[in-house]
């Protein structure tokens, strides 16, 4: 038996192709504005994952896996954790405690360095959360036959 056709619903497909870029853009906005407004890594990761999940429901699992394959997702998730721990270890290298951003010499004052450290950590969290949420979705979603 051939695999069941993906959704032919033209309304869903057109709506998704309009909405997905907006959702992704908003996710990136929330990610980089986590320090000065409502938002942050966890929320942005979930929003980005929601955009890809909408894409998957409209165009099918195969099309989505062409863009973000399972292997790539694990690489992204590990990269996010690596960025987080990397910032922490960087603080140790510059003579501070683990995750003490103030000692990293990127800003003029410790507070400014701490700001950049927080942004980096937020990006790491966002990448990990997005990749793991999508990975869980890929695993739990129903396969076509014999899933």
């Amino acid at each position, binding site marked *: 038996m051939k695999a069941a056709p993906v959704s032919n619903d033209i309304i869903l497909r057109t709506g998704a192709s309009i909405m997905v870029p907006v959702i992704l853009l908003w996710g990136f906005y929330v990610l980089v504005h*986590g*320090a*000065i*407004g*409502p*938002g*942050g890594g966890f929320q942005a990761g979930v929003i980005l994952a929601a955009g890809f999940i909408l894409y998957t429901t409209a165009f099918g699992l195969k099309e989505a896996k062409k863009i973000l394959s399972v292997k790539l997702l694990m690489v992204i*998730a590990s990269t*996010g*954790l690596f960025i*987080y*721990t990397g910032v*922490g270890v960087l603080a140790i290298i510059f003579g501070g405690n*683990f*995750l003490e*951003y*103030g000692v990293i010499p990127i*800003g003029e*004052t*410790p*507070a*400014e*360095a*701490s*700001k950049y*450290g*927080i942004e980096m*950590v*937020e990006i*790491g*969290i966002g990448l*990990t*959360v997005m*990749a*793991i949420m999508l*990975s*869980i979705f890929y*695993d*739990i979603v129903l396969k076509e036959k014999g899933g």
Partner: protein
Amino acid sequence: MRRYLAILSCFIFWAILVYGVPDLPAIGDPEAPANKHVAPRYIERSYEESGVPNIVTAILTNYRGYDTLGETIVIFTAGISVMLLLRRREK
């Protein structure tokens, strides 16, 4: 039988918890112990120590950065365990 036992124990659970309600602070009380402990210091000092206006982000990634690292590892582990439980080798 099991259902009645469950309802009975739920009722006892509810009654015990409601018995403690009068001792809790009213909603929005600025004098509540939860709002008096470390929160004022965070609100006063977080900008000069972390450089970000969002206090929640400052606490999350600066004061409690180690906690959040553990949190990220928790979701990472959850993703890996879901993968181990459900993924089948694609041939």
